[in-house]
């Protein structure tokens, strides 16, 4: 109990005043602020920005240039609010999950492991990658890539366990809502692709590599690199006719629950994509054959894709807290745990 209380106090300090107000029970009208989540046992932080709940049009209109049929028909979606990572998860953060935080905590920071750390330590961690998952494109300050969606989810579970807060991947709808940041244009800044260079790294301007997070302009919510740099895993199973199949009762907080490991939806396009793939509505299904092509072993790695260094992720945290039981159910569904 003592350690829990200490952690709680620590969180209050970390989350700043507004988050404290939220924990005390607040109404939708209260302001929810950005906060910085320091990962326990490290000197690494994740910056989170709030995305207020609301409604928006999911998908793109048929008239949108370079639009694909899986982006429609457009549906009006209602979402609860959440925080989202201001930046894509970087190698600094991802490597902690790859066991580094044990070393830092025990050997360098000399911090005592908290109860949560001990539970988190028991979570399965990635196997060593076969080759270099950064492909020489850079690590610290650069977005992590090459992980499978399973690995990205395990990172979320590990982070949730370590922090005592519920972090997960965004749903497709949440992702697009956060990307649009109130806009209903092809890109969050408008329709003119000429402006894209100010906001995102894509095939024409990225020099064949990802870049440090946060170098381009943010969108209206203050989120960086939603369009381009690395494409981002979402929580959803990919169906080309997903929007068409959405029923009236699905329009609030929709989530296409996974039924198989592939395909799952990736959003935002990457440094390796043409500008049209960076549009807010563009959807990309994960591709097990292509993205694991050079994995020479069978079975292939659950943790690493040998051929998709251009896919990373960012985390979200719903305003509405889940009970531990609800969280356990969530991980069971998403990680196929019994």
């Amino acid at each position: 109990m003592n350690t829990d209380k200490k952690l709680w106090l620590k969180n209050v300090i970390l989350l700043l005043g507004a988050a404290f107000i939220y924990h005390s029970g607040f109404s939708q009208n209260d302001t929810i602020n950005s906060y910085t989540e320091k990962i326990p046992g490290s000197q690494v932080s994740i910056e989170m920005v709030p995305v207020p709940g609301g409604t928006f049009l999911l998908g793109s209109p048929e008239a949108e240039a370079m639009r694909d049929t899986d982006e429609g028909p457009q549906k009006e979606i209602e979402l609860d609010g959440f925080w989202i990572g201001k930046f894509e998860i970087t190698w600094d953060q991802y490597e902690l999950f790859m066991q580094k935080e044990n070393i830092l905590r025990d050997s360098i920071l000399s911090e005592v492991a908290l109860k949560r750390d001990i539970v988190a330590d028991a979570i399965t961690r990635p196997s060593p990658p076969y080759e270099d998952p950064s492909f020489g494109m850079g690590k610290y300050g650069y977005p992590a890539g090459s992980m499978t969606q399973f690995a990205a989810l395990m990172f979320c579970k590990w982070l949730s366990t370590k922090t005592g807060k519920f972090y997960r991947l965004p749903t497709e709808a949440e992702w697009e809502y956060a990307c649009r940041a109130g806009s209903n244009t092809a890109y969050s800044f408008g329709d003119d692709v000429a402006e894209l260079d100010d906001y995102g790294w894509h095939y024409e301007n990225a020099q064949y590599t990802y870049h440090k997070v946060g170098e381009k302009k943010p969108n209206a919510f203050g989120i960086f690199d939603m369009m381009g740099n690395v494409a981002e895993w979402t929580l959803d199973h990919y169906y080309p006719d997903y929007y068409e199949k959405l029923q009236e009762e699905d329009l609030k907080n929709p989530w296409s629950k996974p039924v198989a490991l592939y395909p799952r939806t990736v959003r935002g396009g990457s440094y390796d994509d043409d500008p049209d793939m960076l549009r807010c509505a563009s959807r990309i299904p994960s591709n097990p054959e292509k993205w694991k092509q050079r994995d020479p072993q069978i079975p292939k790695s659950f943790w690493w894709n040998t051929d998709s260094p251009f896919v990373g992720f960012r985390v979200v945290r719903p305003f509405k807290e889940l009970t531990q039981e609800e969280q356990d159910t969530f991980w069971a569904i998403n990680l196929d745990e019994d």
Partner: protein
Amino acid sequence: MDKKLSINRRDFVKGSATVAGGVMVGGLPLESSAHPAGTDTLKIALIGCGGRGTGAAVQALSVKQDVQLVAMADAFKDRLDTSYNNIVEKITDKNRINVPDKNKFVGFDGYKAAIDLADVIILTTPPGFRPIHLEYAVKNDKHIFTEKPMATDAAGVRKVLEMAELAKQKKLNVVVGLQRHYQTVYRELIKRIHGGEIGEITAAQAYWNGGGVWVHPREAGQTEMEYQMRNWYYFNWLCGDHIVEQHIHNLDVINWVKQDYPVKAQGMGGRQVRTGKEYGEIFDHHYVEFEYADGSIMNSQCRHIQNTWNKVAEAVTGTKGRADSSGTLYDLNGNIIWKHRDNDDPNPYQQEHDELFASIEAGEVINDLENGAKSTMTAILGRMATYSGQMITWDEAINSDHRLVPDSFGWDVLPPVLPDENGFYPIPMPGITKVL
């Protein structure tokens, strides 16, 4: 191309009208064979049923020729069974799998009976056994796909070179799993380098800096031989150290570019982080300076330390420009003069098998063995340099009688390296360790 099939890359060419790639036929999907295995069926035996062997078997069974897996061999029954199940799961045309229990051979000697049953042999055991298995397959007139490296000591390399010559005389096809030779980006890049686009090559760098591999904890009741066989990566008679087992890929690329092999090497290495007894006897880092006959240097680094800077790649500098294995040529000012985009390229691991079986079918000959042996020797030379701390010449190295691989095998046979009373293995010590 439908954008949904890939996050789209494409061939990107600057200053050249030649678009690379696009001519290869991908190995997927499988063509179904309408008829049961007839006399023309190429029968395949898999020797070594780990993850790589399973992958290689699935690729061999995915070629368009009429093939059938007929025999499997592994030291361990559990590995063989898992492999069999994974192959069955992956291969939709069940006519291509015909391995009754009597053709599943467990133990050290099972390879002979399995090889006897087949026309094409897949050799994917730990490399310490490779020369022995290769010799049996070549002497019995089999076509072969063999994983790299080809051996773990010089005696093994000499045996493989002997078999390379014998295979040549017998017109056998032997593909070595140095798959960069079957990867379009490398073929295109090195074709241009050999064409003189960046001048004469004067310096080279090779890297395999990664996080390392698996560990299988010691289990009660295991003999020392069984423990080492399960953890073969950490024992040199089986693995050769990671400079041989993995970094060979990168060293081989530079040899390919140079169309030659080093004449001498010196280097340094050790165990800085991976020092536990569960890591056997191998180093966690090596840095080697190889010198070719023309005096040009290849700097080679390989590391198995987690949370460090990673790079698995090759680069060369020429008198007119530079090249790196991302498929890029640069001028001397760093401007990109050619760049290959590889996403639509065939899978090199599949390509190896597609070309092997096509060559067998056409009555042609591919023989990668001599290069496979010499690139293996390059890596062993590097290990000799880091273990000893001495300058070692190619001639000294390849003629060395320092044998790592024993003459006999068995679960109760003591392996050539044994732990002390605390479970730690002797570690090579530069300045002390003799390697020749």
